[in-house]
Every structure is written in C-alpha cells, then in structure tokens.
C-alpha cells in the first residue's frame, strides 16, 4: 500500500529582481550656468559723530517760559481764536453737566473686607518669650523684617535677640522659617530699611548700639556698627531712620535717637564702623516751652522716645520726648547744646524750635502725613491719638482710641484721611476722617489674648498690605479692603479743610 517515491522539485523563479530592474531609470540634471563677477567697494570718506543724552535737569531748565514769550509763533493767534470757542463751550458744559454723576469705574477687583494673609513667627524667639518690637518693609515692598526684643524690661538686658526677614513674594514662603535670621547681642528696638537699596537694614539696640546689616552678605551680614565711642548712645535707641545726604551724590546716613537725649547722624565708613557725622542733644532748659515743667536740673538731657521725618521739608523733624513733649526740630539749628561734660571735638547742637502741647504720658509714636505738609499724628500712653498741625501748639483733633497705651500710629499711604493706630489691647484700629464720627471704621484683632500691638507698617509698594507685630511674637500681614485703600475724589481738599480749622 505505502511505497517510497521521489518527486520532482518545483521551482519558482524570482520575479523580484526583474521587476525592480524594469523600473530603474537614471536621469541627470544640471542648473544653468551661474554668472559670477567680482567687484571691490571701499568707503573713501569717514565721518564720526558722538551722541550723548543730557541729564534730565537740563531738559527742564531749557524750557523757559519767559524766553518763549518773546518768540513769535505765526498762526498762534488764529489757532487760539479757532479753538477757544470750542474749548469754552466744552468747559461750560462740563461745569453744568450731570452726565457722570454717580458713574464709578472699577479697574481693580474690589475687596469688601479686610482679610488675613500670613502669620509669620520665629519659633525660637517665641519659645524664649521675645516680642516683636518693630516691623519694616523694604524699598521694593517684598521683604518684611521683624525685630525681636523686649519692651517691658526696665533694666539692662544682655539677652540675645534676633532680626528675621521673610520674602513674601517667594513661592516657598514658610511662615515658621524666616529667610534670614540675624543674631543680635541685645534686644533690638527699632529697624529701618534703606530707601533705595533693598538689602540694607539699620537697627538700634537696647544697649545703645546702632548696626547696619547687609542681607545679601553671608556669612556675616553686619556691614557697620558703632563702637563704644564717647559720643555713642548709652541708653536704648528707640528710633533709627535713613537720611538722604545733603548733596545729590551723597550716600544716605543713619539717624538714631535714644533715651539719653542724643540724636546722632552716622555715616558708614570703610572699615566697618559707623562714624558720627553730626549730632543733636535735647537738654531740658534749651527746650522752648509755653508752660514750665520744672522738675530736675535744667541741664538734664530729655530722652527721646519717638521721631518722625517730614516728607515735605527736609529740614524739619519731629521728636517725641519723655514727659509727653512733642517738639519741632530743625536739622540746621546752630545753638550748641549745653551738655554737661561734653567733649570739644564734636559739637552737639540743640535742635528744638517749637514745642507743642504735651500729652499726659510718654509719646510712643509720631507720623507725618504724606499728603499735607503741616499735619502729623502723635500717640502715647494716655490712650489718645492727636491730629496736630505744625503751625500751632494745641492739637486739631484728639481721638480717644483705647483705654490702654497706644504704641504705634501710621498714616495710610494712599488715602489722605485714613490712619491706623496700634493699641495695647491687641487691636489695630483704622480711622477714616471723612466720616463724621470719631469711631474707628475698621478694627483688626491682632491676637485673641489681648497682648499689645507694638508696631505697624504699611507696605510702600503694595499699598493694601498692612503688617502688624505684637507682644505674642508674631507678625500678621493683613490685606485691607478697597474702601480703605482707594482714594476718593475730594479727600485732599477735605484734609486741607481739617488742617486749617482752628480748635475752639
């Protein structure tokens, strides 16, 4: 049945190569012949011109109206004749028009309430019970620095303290970990950021030293410090400020005011020291007074507890002293101060020119209005905030803010009639003078335990932010409502009216 067989092989020829070969063709192409020529070019004339921009003052100076009045402009008369008819008609219509009454435009989203943004604290300082004594924003408005120390101690303290900074614009903002912590040998009572260089801070200590730190330097941020010179402060420094130099190119100088009655102007010297440039001393008998407050010898120094610089007049500054005195002082005063045992190489001058009516208690805060050249606020331990004018002694307005001490008062940088006051009961009260009543428009509860608010500062660039620091060791950043930050149309004239009122 089954047998072996061999079959023939079957072949299939490959078709692939034949089919490929049939499709091959070769072609060649060539572009047309390119024509090339060579030519040489050389400039035979060279001319040079220099261009320089002139500084901005030259531009303003060259515009001289008197000069232009003599030049005849052809066609000016005809132009004015043509245009003035139309302009006068529009002016009259505008004065009578009610078309825009009640028409309010809002470009920015409105916030109805004050909201809480951040609560910043440094746990190590809080553990030791240190309080926030001063807060300060830097010139760009993105960094806040807080000074830790104690305000309640009455005796010498050699306890170490801190200055902490947080950068609020950084994405990884950790409210418990400051971006920079500077160790300071004694309690820091005041801080001031440099007005144009965002990394320099000046601080005044409880021991009387004044230091300048540069936050961009590491590891040691101390840029300059006062040594223990004869002239340096021996009592706590309550205020530091940066002063612009007298000539245009000069660097800023540091002004420090302390409880020993001396107000010194320091300049940063090359070897890391602060050298005294000029100084003032407040002596009891050299203060012009309307009423005599006569305790103690006449040549005792009067301690300074608050200081404010005027935005409008660079010669004037205001000083709040022990005993509730508020004084108007001048940088260019000439009378030498009769300081007991003064040395001959640095003449201290008596700056006081005029004394306003006194508060019944030490003054903790003074602030000059950024919108009116004569108005300023003063607040002290008697619980009243006084609105005063530089031109007269008694206050224009006296507001009873709280039953406890007032530690800080600040004008709003955007609304001429609004100011904020920090109280000893832990509240920040915001007052709006455009409303008839003298009760606060807004009250911010800084902490629930009622510990005092020691310091406040409005952000100079993002003006709806307010930072406040208190005895509980935290700094809280508040975002104010638009009502408190947007200027209304008639505010400056209302402020002017208030300033010109004479109290009965």
């Amino acid at each position, binding site marked *: 049945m089954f047998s072996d067989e061999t079959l023939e092989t079957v072949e299939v020829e490959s078709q692939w190569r034949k089919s490929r070969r049939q499709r091959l063709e070769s072609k060649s192409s060539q572009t047309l012949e390119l024509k090339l020529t060579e030519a040489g070019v050389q400039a035979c004339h060279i001319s040079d011109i220099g261009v320089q921009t002139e500084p901005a003052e030259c531009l303003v100076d060259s515009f001289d109206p008197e000069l232009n009045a003599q030049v*005849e402009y052809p066609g000016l008369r005809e132009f004015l004749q043509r245009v003035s008819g139309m302009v006068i008609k529009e002016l009259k219509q505008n004065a009578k028009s009610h078309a825009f009454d009640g028409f309010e435009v809002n470009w920015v989203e409105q916030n109805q309430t004050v909201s809480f943004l951040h609560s910043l604290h440094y746990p190590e300082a809080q553990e030791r019970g240190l309080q926030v004594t001063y807060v300060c924003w830097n010139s760009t408005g993105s960094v806040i620095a807080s000074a830790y120390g104690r305000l309640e101690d009455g005796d010498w303290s050699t306890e170490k303290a801190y200055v902490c900074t947080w950068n609020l614009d950084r994405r990884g903002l950790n409210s418990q970990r400051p971006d920079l912590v500077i160790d300071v040998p004694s309690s820091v009572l005041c801080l001031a950021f440099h007005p144009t260089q965002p990394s320099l801070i000046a601080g005044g200590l409880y021991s009387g030293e004044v230091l300048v730190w540069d936050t961009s330097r590491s590891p040691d941020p101390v840029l300059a410090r006062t040594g223990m010179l004869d002239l340096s402060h021996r009592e706590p420094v309550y205020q530091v400020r940066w002063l612009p130099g007298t000539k245009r190119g000069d660097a800023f100088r540091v002004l420090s005011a302390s409880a020993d009655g001396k107000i010194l102007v320091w300049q940063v010297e090359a070897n890391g020291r602060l050298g005294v440039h000029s100084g003032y001393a407040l002596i009891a008998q050299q203060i012009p007074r309307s009423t005599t407050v006569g305790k103690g010898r006449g040549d005792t120094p009067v301690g300074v507890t608050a200081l404010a610089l005027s935005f409008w007049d660079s010669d004037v500054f205001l000083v709040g002293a022990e005993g509730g005195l508020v004084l108007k002082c001048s940088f260019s005063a000439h009378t030498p101060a009769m300081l007991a045992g003064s040395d001959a190489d640095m003449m201290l001058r008596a700056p006081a020119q005029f004394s306003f009516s006194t508060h019944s208690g030490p003054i903790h805060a003074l602030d000059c209005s950024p919108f009116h050249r004569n108005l300023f606020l003063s607040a002290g331990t008697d619980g009243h905030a006084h609105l005063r004018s530089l031109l007269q002694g008694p206050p224009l307005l006296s507001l009873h803010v709280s039953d406890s001490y007032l530690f800080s008062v600040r004008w709003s940088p955007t609304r001429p009639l609004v100011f904020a006051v920090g109280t000893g009961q832990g509240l920040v009260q915001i007052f709006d003078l455009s409303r008839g009543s003298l009760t606060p428009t807004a009250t911010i509860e800084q902490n629930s335990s009622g510990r005092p608010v020691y310091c406040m500062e409005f952000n100079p660039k993002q003006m709806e932010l307010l930072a406040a620091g208190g005895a509980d060791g935290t700094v809280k950043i508040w975002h104010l409502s638009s009502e408190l930050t947007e200027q209304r149309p008639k505010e400056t004239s209302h402020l002017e009216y208030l300033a010109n009122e004479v109290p009965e």
Partner: protein
Amino acid sequence: MSEIEETLKRIQSHKGVVGTIVVNAQGIPIRTTLDNSTTLQYTALLRQITILARGTVRDIDPQNDLTFLRMRSKKHEVMVGVDKDFLFVVVQAPSE
C-alpha cells in the same frame, strides 16, 4: 501778543480749570500755567495719545479728521483742541 494772553487768561479763569498748555508742532510747550515738570509730562503723553486718536479717526474714515479729544478720569477731565500746527490742552477738575 496781548490778544493771545487775554484769550488764555479768559480760559484759565473758567470754573474748575486747573491749567492750560499750548504745544507747538515740534511738541514743545510754548505757553503754560502749570509748573515745568507737570507741563513736560502732560505734553509728552498727550502728544502720543493725540496722534493715536487721529490715526483711529482717519483709519475709520479717511475723509474725516480729529478736531477735539476729551479724556475723563476720576480726578480730572483733560481736553485737547487739535490743529495742524498746535495743540491746546486744558485740564479741568469736575465740580461736584
């Protein structure tokens, strides 16, 4: 010359007028009642916006041309009378 001054004074004395500026074709203010820096600021900025406004009007209808420009803001109203050779700027505060 005095006619020019008289016209300008008349306009300046209208209710609410804060200041007036006359600008020539090169953009230089030739008469003004405001201070130097404010005048220069207003001149530079208003010239730019007048040129832009004129371009807008003429793009929409080439036969048309800008005669007068008014800008109303929260605090002021700025009026600009326009011509080939000059600009006349008046700043008025609204009366409320």
